[in-house]
């Protein structure tokens, strides 16, 4: 009985593996209905499962697969053209086959599954006898596929046999085959040949042997009894033999030497490697200490050699063990062609899925987690992204929408890109929708860049779909994506162009157990930040920090990032003096980014993640701990939690300086002459025009002949200026440079800078805005106009 159980196990494992491949093949078949190789492959799956299930007495499954086989066989011989309708029937039957297999796996029997296969069988019969499916379903079952009029001439035996006879014949052959196999095995054993005890591939061999003796013979070439008496089965043989070369090649891959290993054992191995990595780190640390102390000693060389060889081997070992846990992402991708196919039929759209990089490998645990998010993203692309065919045609696009799924490695991460050529995301629409649903406030919406607006799709409760369809629109899916990707410490990037399409990029670390981390110091404490979440590090000064609505922000190139001190998040008391230079680590997770202010950057190190255990589980902001080379414990920051905590821990990064500047500016101004305006222009005429224009205001005017002089005046003045009129074209230092220099001073951060220039080009104006010009006045101007501008910007309320 045990033997039977073993066979059953093998059968199930094999069957599920085949089914995985089957889905993909079937969808491909619809695109290339004439591909004989594909047809043969699909036929063989149905056939193999039928053969094995009849052997194991699964009658329901046998019956179903038998009828499937009929249809596929006809298609294989060109007697039947695969149409989408026929495909639907075949796919439905495969679904039932899967359900039966699940039932067998769970209950050990297919009779108790409660799955009624009769309607499907009727449909299959109808297909194979060439009738319209609906008609056949309406009419009572007409089990007459026996008399096949289109039977091919070169296989009379097969065509003339009743289904039952064929089955018997096959069973007989199967038995014969097994006997032969057994005999051959014994022979081999007798010959003293090592017989690899790999059960699973044997099952395949047997399965194939029914339909294709040729490929069976190929891998075990010199077996004399390999070709069975070609009786009626020969009818099957030639067709399969045509694909013999391919099948042999395919057979070769299945026979590839593999063993199945319990995942727990691999996990244990990974843990041990983790210890080794820690040991290695420690060794390297000790070596550098020793090197310092005994510089120039002979034994250092030897020690160096040992240390570096140990560390190389450890790294290699770690990679090797990591690889054993790696699975190709194709495992996850496999289900998508079928999904897209079903979706496009359901939505009446034309969508094609283009996949690449299926062979890209990543950790098993990640493969398991990544499936769901991808399902949601792809559904979204098909449902919201790709338009209806007529809309596409009207927009001058190909009616067939393309969803592209790409996977590739990038450094220590794997990148999965999902792009569609659909209608794209409209940032304005997203913002207004988000405001309408109360996801963000109007103020927030205004401050949002397009890129930030795209990430709105990940907010819970947010959906752009006008109506809720079967497929999407409940505003849950993309939130799931975000949570799952966060769990994996991944990063999401969205890029979109209205009318052109949307690309979603997922960046996920390769493995979860041993990671690269950035070590940072805050006061006297150290923390490790997973490098996969670190976007970049920048060094800034206090002056680079702006205050927006009481929050500290950093302007980094075109982006505005909120800043938060790690010491505020973790409640670390400031015992050490603060540096003028601050380090900011920009961390990104899923769709969000913030800047973490730290005191010191220590460096990059490979760390092994250790759990804090039950007692300290779930401490906010801490993902775990690691042991460093010196034996001390360093905590690993939980980037997702940090992002959350940053929202509440938002203290002003710089309070003192801002306060003094504010006080200085708020100093009482009673007279118009208390207001100081700086005029910078290289032409004396222009300066006097400006001075005369401003005279009626009564403000104090200081003049400078060029940028350098102006900067000197600004630096050394006791009283801050209230406004600055700047000409753009000046010798030594031009107006743009001057403006950006002035902006570096904290107290002049908010001083209005007004450009007064004869340059009128759009790019000039843009540059003016970039460097922080509040107003751009082109010469010539009327005195009143200039006066009003200055008045407005200085908030001059006192009358002279």
């Amino acid at each position, binding site marked *: 009985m045990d033997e039977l159980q073993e066979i059953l196990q093998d059968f199930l494992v094999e069957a599920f593996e085949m089914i995985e491949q089957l889905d993909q093949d079937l969808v491909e078949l619809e695109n290339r209905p004439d591909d004989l190789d594909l047809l043969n492959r699909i036929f063989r799956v149905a056939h193999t499962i039928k053969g094995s299930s009849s052997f194991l007495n699964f009658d329901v499954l046998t019956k179903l697969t038998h009828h499937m086989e009929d249809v596929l066989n006809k298609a294989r011989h060109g007697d039947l053209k695969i149409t989408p309708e026929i495909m639907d029937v075949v796919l439905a039957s495969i679904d039932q086959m899967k359900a039966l297999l699940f039932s067998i796996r769970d209950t050990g029997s297919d009779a108790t599954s409660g799955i009624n296969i009769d309607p499907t069988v009727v449909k299959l019969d109808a297909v194979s006898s060439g009738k319209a499916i609906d008609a056949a379903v309406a009419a009572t079952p007409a089990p007459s596929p026996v008399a096949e009029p289109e039977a091919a001439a070169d296989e009379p035996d097969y065509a003339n046999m009743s289904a039952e006879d064929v089955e018997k014949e096959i069973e007989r052959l199967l038995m014969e085959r097994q006997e032969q196999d057994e005999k051959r095995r014994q022979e081999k054993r007798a010959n003293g040949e090592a017989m690899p005890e790999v059960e699973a591939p044997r099952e395949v061999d047997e399965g194939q042997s029914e339909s294709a003796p040729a490929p069976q013979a190929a891998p075990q070439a010199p077996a004399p009894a390999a070709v069975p008496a070609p009786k009626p089965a020969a009818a099957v043989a030639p067709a399969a033999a045509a694909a013999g070369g391919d099948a042999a090649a395919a057979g070769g891959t299945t026979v590839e030497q593999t063993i199945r290993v319990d995942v727990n054992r691999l996990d244990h191995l990974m843990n041990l490697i983790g*210890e080794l990595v*820690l040991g290695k780190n420690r060794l390297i640390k000790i070596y550098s200490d020793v090197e310092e102390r005994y510089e120039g000693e002979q034994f250092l060389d030897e020690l160096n050699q040992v240390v570096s060889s140990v560390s190389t081997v450890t790294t290699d070992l770690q990679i090797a063990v990591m690889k054993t846990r790696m699975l190709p992402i194709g495992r996850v991708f496999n289900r998508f062609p079928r999904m897209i196919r079903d979706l496009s039929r359901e939505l009446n759209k034309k969508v094609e899925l283009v996949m690449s990089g299926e062979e890209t490998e990543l950790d098993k645990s990640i493969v398991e987690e990544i499936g769901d998010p991808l399902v949601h993203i792809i559904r979204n692309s098909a449902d919201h992204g790709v338009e209806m065919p007529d809309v596409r045609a009207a927009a001058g696009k190909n009616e067939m929408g393309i969803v592209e799924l790409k996977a590739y490695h990038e450094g220590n991460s794997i990148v999965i890109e999902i792009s569609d050529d659909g209608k794209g995301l409209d940032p304005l629409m997203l913002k207004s929708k988000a405001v309408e649903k109360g996801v963000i406030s109007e103020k927030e919406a205004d401050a949002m860049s397009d890129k930030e607006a795209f990430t709105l799709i990940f907010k819970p409760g947010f959906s752009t779909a006008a109506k809720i369809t079967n497929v999407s629109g409940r505003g849950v899916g993309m939130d799931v994506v975000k949570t799952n990707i966060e769990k994996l410490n991944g990063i999401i990037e969205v890029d979109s162009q209205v009318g052109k399409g949307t690309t979603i990029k997922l960046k996920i670390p390769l493995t979860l157990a041993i990671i690269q981390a950035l070590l940072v110091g805050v006061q006297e*404490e150290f923390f490790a930040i997973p490098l996969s979440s670190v976007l970049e590090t920048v060094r800034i000064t206090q002056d680079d920090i702006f205050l927006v609505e009481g929050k500290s922000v950093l302007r980094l190139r075109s982006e505005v990032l909120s800043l938060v001190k790690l010491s505020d*998040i*973790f*409640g*670390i008391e400031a015992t050490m003096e603060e540096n003028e230079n601050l380090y900011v680590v920009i961390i990104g997770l899923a769709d969000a980014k913030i800047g973490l202010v730290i005191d010191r950057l220590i460096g990059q190190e490979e760390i092994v993640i*250790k*759990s*804090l*255990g*039950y*007692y*300290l589980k779930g*401490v*906010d*902001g*801490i993902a775990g*701990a690691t*042991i460093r080379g010196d*034996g*001390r*414990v*360093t*905590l690993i920051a939980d980037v997702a939690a940090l992002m959350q905590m940053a929202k509440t821990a938002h203290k002003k990064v710089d309070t003192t300086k801002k306060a003094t500047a504010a006080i200085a500016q708020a100093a009482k101004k009673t007279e118009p002459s208390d207001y100081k305006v700086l005029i910078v222009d290289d032409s004396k005429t222009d300066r006097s025009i400006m001075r005369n224009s401003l005279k009626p205001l009564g403000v104090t005017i200081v003049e400078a002949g060029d940028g350098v002089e102006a900067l000197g005046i600004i630096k050394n003045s006791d009283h801050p200026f209230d406004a600055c009129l700047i000409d753009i074209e000046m010798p030594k230092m031009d107006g743009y440079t001057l403006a950006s220099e002035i902006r570096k001073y904290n107290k002049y951060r908010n001083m209005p800078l007004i450009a007064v220039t004869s340059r009128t080009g759009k790019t000039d104006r843009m540059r003016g805005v970039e460097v922080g010009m509040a107003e751009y006045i082109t010469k010539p101007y009327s005195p009143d106009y200039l006066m009003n501008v200055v008045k407005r910007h200085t908030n001059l309320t006192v009358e002279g």
Partner: protein
Amino acid sequence: MSEKLQDVIKKQQKQKVQPLKKDEDTLQVVGFNVGDEEFAVSILNIQEIIKPIDYTRVPGTPGYVLGVFNLRGNVLPLISLRLKFGLPFAKYTEDTRFIVVKNGAQTVGFVIDKLTQAFILRESEIDHTLDMQSEQEGLIYGIGKREDRIITILKAEGLLKREF
């Protein structure tokens, strides 16, 4: 000396002399001082006792959780029993030790002021009545007497219970 007291002393001396019967219900414990009081934990729950080593502070935890430390590659939490029992913080002395207590799969280190000794108590000598009134419910197993000292026997599962 009153008769009563003499009785007690006699009894205690008897105990000392009397060898423990094999089938008698006993509890072997390790005693230690925290502040002025003496406590004990069943020896079966003690994995090891080590001299103080460096630890790393963990933010967002109550004050008595000092942090985590590295015990031969395992990261364990470190709890100050002084702070947990509401006593003021004290500097480490020569006698300060970390007691590593294990209960099931959980292991936690505790800072104590001084080890006293390991000894065996009869189950019948342990007074369990206090347990009910104790504020730290579930923390105290019972009160044991030893010579002239009163020893609070702590429960490992109570010590290792997370209270935040």
